[in-house]
């Protein structure tokens, strides 16, 4: 059982790699694009989980960085800059700069006030993009073509699927390394006891700020990927409910667990897709499910799975 748990992510990765190859045979072509979208949101949710789960910072404005990244990619594209290897890092830089400004001010506050001030900044960014008439205002902008990588045609659904997969897996791996590095351990220490970490001589504010900026940059990259995926960006990406739904994904998946963001994104987007097939009133079963998760799976789905697996291996596994 233990070994299955350790191998499960690899198994999923293999499935994801194989999926576009077998999809046409199974008549699941449509789902290649769907899985790509899920991957992008999984990256965004994981970047939020990085500060929320490991840093204890409940930021209700993460969609601002996500949306800003998408807008930067889209605006660059309308200006004729079509190279993704240039456009994506620029999107990350802009989102990181934005996160730096928001973080410097917001990280002075605690608890609910932090939630609210990050929300305030996100609303500011939201209204800022609504007012940019030359970039579509409320209606958003269409991209005439996706940003391209040399030697690859990202307009092709399967090619862009693999690029997204590679970027997402790479980012997840990197974030996981950061979490287990000294920096990440210090971050988790701050989550547990900020005063003690301060007393031990850690630069608490700088560590939190750096984590916040990193998460912002990764969210910006996810946004740039989404711009390529949708070939459309609009301010609704940055609406506060978008930030809330990223938080919901993280909570559903499991706060502060390695695959919490991924599991949350998969479950929420998949449920939305499935429930929509059956009823117009798909919010209701989703709400009931969230209630069930809150009341019966306090650590999120990943947490429940981990404790279930641990119990199972203790009882029935080989000694």
């Amino acid at each position, binding site marked *: 059982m233990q070994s299955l748990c350790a191998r499960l992510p690899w198994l999923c990765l293999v499935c994801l790699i194989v999926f576009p190859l077998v999809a046409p045979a199974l008549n699941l072509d449509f789902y290649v694009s769907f899985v790509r979208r899920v991957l992008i949101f999984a990256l965004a949710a994981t970047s939020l989980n990085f500060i*929320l789960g490991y840093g204890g910072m*409940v930021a209700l404005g993460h969609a601002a960085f996500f949306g800003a990244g998408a807008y930067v990619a889209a605006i660059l594209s309308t200006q004729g800059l079509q190279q993704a290897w240039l456009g994506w890092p620029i999107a990350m830089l802009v989102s990181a700069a934005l996160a730096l400004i928001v973080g410097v*001010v917001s990280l*002075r*506050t*605690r*608890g*609910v*006030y932090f*939630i*609210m*001030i990050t*929300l*305030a*900044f996100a*609303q*500011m960014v939201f*209204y*800022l993009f*609504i*007012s940019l*008439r030359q970039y579509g205002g409320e209606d958003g902008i269409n991209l005439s073509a996706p940003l391209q990588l040399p030697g690859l045609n990202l307009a092709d659904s399967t090619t862009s699927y693999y690029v997204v997969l590679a970027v997402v897996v790479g980012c997840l791996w990197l974030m996981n390394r950061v979490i287990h590095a000294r920096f990440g351990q210090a971050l988790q220490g701050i989550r547990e006891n900020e005063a003690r970490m301060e007393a031990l001589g850690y630069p608490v504010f700088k560590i939190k700020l750096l984590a916040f900026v990193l998460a912002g940059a990764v969210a910006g990259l996810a946004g740039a990927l989404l711009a390529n995926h949708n070939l459309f960006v609009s301010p609704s990406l940055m609406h*506060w*409910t978008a930030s*809330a739904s990223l*938080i*919901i994904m993280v*909570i*559903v998946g499991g*706060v502060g667990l390695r695959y919490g963001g991924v599991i949350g994104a998969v479950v929420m987007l998949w449920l939305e897709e499935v429930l929509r097939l059956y009823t117009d*009133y798909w*919010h*209701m079963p*989703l*709400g*009931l*499910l*969230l*209630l069930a*998760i*809150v*009341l019966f799976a*306090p650590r999120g789905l990943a947490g429940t799975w981990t404790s279930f697996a641990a119990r199972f291996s203790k009882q029935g596994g080989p000694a």
Partner: protein
Amino acid sequence: MSATLIAEQLLNGLQFGLMLFLIAAGLTLVFGILDILNVAHGSLYMAGAYVAAQTMQATQSFLLAVVVSAVVTGLVGLIIELVLVRRLVVRDHLAQVLGTFAIILIANDVVKMIWGPAPVMMSMPAALSGPVHILPNMLYPAYRLLIIAVGLAAALGLYLFVTRTRAGVLVRAGASNRQMATLMGVRVPLLFLGVFVLGAMLAALAGAMLGPVTAIQAGMGEQILILVLVCIVIGGIGSIRGAFVGALLVGFVDTAGRAFLPTLLKIFFSPAVASSVGPTLAALSIYILMAVVLVFRPAGLFPARG
């Protein structure tokens, strides 16, 4: 920009601020006493508006509509408290957000199932549908004056309740130090229930009063919730006085921003710039206000816990 226009906008700001206060009062109490981040508070406001519209249509009595709306929403609040909120008290803020967000999802679909996806209109009481002269050369809609009157009366009533009654003392004790209140023998579960139901009824009152001047539709709760959260964060979470000041500030700043900023900007910039930047800046103004307040007073203007 005449004096009457300014006076009219001041009244509009007052009216908006008072309605925000009715919703904010309940939210800040629930927050301060139960320590629960209830994002579904806006859904109670929405429920109040829908029930009021339905009752108004059925009976043509505005008074009855307001009373029925408050009672029904109070019952809904009662059920939510007993079933969900009670269990969330011991959990962290994230679980509370998730649990109450689920209520939002369910509530929006329930109203869509009952009343359909299109906005519902609520008629005004016929006697108050016209404008009245409040100054010799100034007309103002009578119904909006009623909103102001009801808002002021509710604020006064709440003030008297909190400062002059035994229950009010318990509420204040709970807000300033919950654990101490428990140790002093306050029956906390009953207090929680009472506060939650009171908050729900106040939100329903705001919903019923604003019903005739807004489009009643699914999602109206989330729009107002954010504004209300801004009010109570500016005021200091848990403080009714703070909620009152915060709500009036937000009401005035938002109304004034929308009414005067585009005109004001035209003095300094070209009309094209003013007409595009003005509305944005107006929409931003309350968030800027909140950010500035939080930078200088990180716990709001009137922190409830000293």
